[in-house]
């Protein structure tokens, strides 16, 4: 097998705070090929955003320790210098964020912000960069781009701002695009527009996309592969189809079960996951999900609370759980029945 385009090996991101060390990401590995979309699912504090800030090297080195390997197209990023990273950011890899209004500078025009990225990485003239900005705005579907290029972010609607963010992220034809909950703040009809746009652009440019979200519905729409994170670790990964229709980890199963659907039964209560997401300052011992897991008692010897389950991956599919596959087959059996009546 050739080397993957992006490869994370045992990534650890720890923050030192006044209260102690927060192990935001604690041993994460995955690969991503060009033209593919990896969906990372997780709740608040699962480490999904921290991972992606780490890929771009955006964590404050004063309170962050990073360990492991991040290799992008053959280049190791954790050991890379700030100048090297600056050349890659916005150029070979770029990022779009959830809150486009807060993430765009209120003091500069949309056009200036897009052009700035382009000039920084290509050294083109102001005129060329401006033309490029207009072209990008047209490409992401902003009407009258030659006029709107001089608008400020607050003059755009929510959907248009996110389009402008995408234009800014793609202005240098990056090979890796990290989208951190880009549609969470948007209305569903606008969300659908933005996801279509991302898919179209990916097809056109062959960009590798990491799509972070807490919404499994969005994952189902956009991802090829899925990685489920919990408490700073990957608990399950596989293709979208594998993860969504045959979940292999109690947490994934719990997430799917807790979501109401547009065609499921309505007169039964939802099946929530009890409890709350773990504290990363004092994570639970053993499997981090075990205090909330419905099946922890099924594993003999209290293994779940004493030993961290390993993530065994074969051909991109795997989960980190002490349950045997036979146990899972029995315990997860009614999953399909309850979801698609």
């Amino acid at each position, binding site marked *: 097998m050739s080397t993957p385009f992006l490869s994370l090996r045992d990534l650890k991101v720890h923050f030192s705070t006044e209260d102690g060390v927060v192990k935001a990401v604690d041993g994460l590995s995955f690969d991503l090929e060009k033209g593919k979309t990896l969906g990372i699912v997780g709740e608040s504090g699962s480490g999904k955003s921290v991972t992606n800030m780490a890929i*771009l090297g*955006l964590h404050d080195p*004063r309170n962050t320790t990073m360990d492991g390997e991040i290799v992008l197209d053959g280049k190791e990023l954790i050991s890379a210098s*700030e100048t090297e990273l*600056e*050349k*890659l*950011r*916005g*150029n070979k890899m*770029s*990022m779009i*964020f959830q*809150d486009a209004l*807060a*993430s*765009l*500078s*209120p*003091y500069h025009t949309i056009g200036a912000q897009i052009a*700035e*990225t382009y000039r*920084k*990485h290509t050294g083109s003239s102001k005129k060329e960069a401006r033309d490029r900005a207009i072209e990008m705005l047209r490409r992401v579907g902003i009407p009258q781009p030659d006029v709107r290029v001089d608008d*400020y972010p*607050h003059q755009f609607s929510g959907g248009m701002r996110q389009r402008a*963010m995408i234009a*800014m992220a793609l202005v240098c034809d990056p090979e890796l695009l990290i989208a951190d909950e880009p549609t969470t703040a948007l209305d569903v009809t606008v969300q659908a527009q933005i996801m279509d746009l991302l898919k179209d652009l990916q097809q056109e440019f062959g960009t590798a996309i990491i799509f972070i979200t807490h919404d499994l519905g969005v994952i189902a729409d956009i991802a090829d592969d899925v990685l489920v994170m919990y408490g700073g670790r990957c608990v399950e990964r596989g293709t979208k189809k594998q993860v969504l229709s045959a979940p292999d980890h109690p947490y994934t199963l719990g997430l799917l079960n807790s979501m109401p659907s547009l065609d499921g039964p309505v007169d039964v209560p939802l099946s929530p996951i009890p409890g709350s997401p773990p504290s990363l300052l004092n994570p639970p011992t053993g499997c981090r999900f075990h205090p909330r897991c419905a099946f922890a008692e099924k594993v003999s010897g209290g293994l779940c609370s004493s030993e961290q389950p390993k993530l065994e991956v074969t051909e991109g599919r795997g989960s980190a759980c002490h349950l045997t596959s036979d146990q899972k087959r029995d315990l997860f059996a009614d999953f399909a029945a309850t979801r698609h009546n």
Partner: protein
Amino acid sequence: MLRFLIRRTLGAAVILLIISALVFVLFYAAPRDPARIACGKVCTPETLALVKKNLGIDHSLPVQYWDWLKGMFVGRDYASFGHCDAPCLGYSFQNREPVLATIEDRFPTTLSLALGSAVVFLIFGVGTGMLAAVKQGKPLDKIASSASLIASSMQIYVVGVLATYFLVDQWHLLDRANYTPFTDDPGKWFTGLLVPWLVLSLIFTANYTRMTRSQMVESLSEDYVRTARAKGLSRRTVFFRFAWRGAMGPIITIFGLDLGVLLGGAIITESTFSLQGIGRLSVKAVGTNDLPMLLGVVLVAAAAIVIFNIIVDAVYALIDPRVRLA
């Protein structure tokens, strides 16, 4: 923008009108009668009436106020002083000088003091604050923070006396404070005011250091700063083009107000260094029940604050495109 300026200027005029009326009313609410004081020890009712007439205070309060207002726009004739051209702020009860001329005489001192110290505290305060923000948590930041805390708890009269004693008398590093008009001798103007500038700006420097630091720290944690970094811009660019832009607004707001206050006279500083500015003039006017002079200095001080308020709002709109003037 023009509409904004017109609207705000009209508003400012109304505010000044209200302030002058208030001063008038408050002045007459005070128990002391200026005519009585001017009249002297042997004061017959006839002389008192004459003094009142001479001072222009022989009418009822509204009429007096009206006369005063009219004087501002069309000039005024006094029984004793003769004609006073518009804008006429009247004559001082105390020394019988025209108020406007006195203020014109004193204002350059106050203006020099205010502008000079503003330059000093902006450069040092904002500069140190930004440096502290860059070196957040490092020794430099801690030193700057503690030093500014100490400095801002000092009193001008203490620092002023100490500075004069050491810098001027003992070590002969700087000149003793005195005011020479800029037009007479810029060099003397500068050296004569250097000590007051440094002393007056000390507390401001400390405040601006702390304010700049906290604004920069806040602004550095904004999402758009993160985006700018994610675009590949260098720390430096992000710091000056993005974070500083966000921090500037609040600093300019406070600066405008501070400058407005300083132009109304820095009473303690002027007294400490025996400078004849608006501040001391106002103290004296209060002490001597000198209504016309008091009205004059109050109006100058109020106008400075009101005008700088308008300027601040206009500048804010220039910095932040989200602010729309109306």
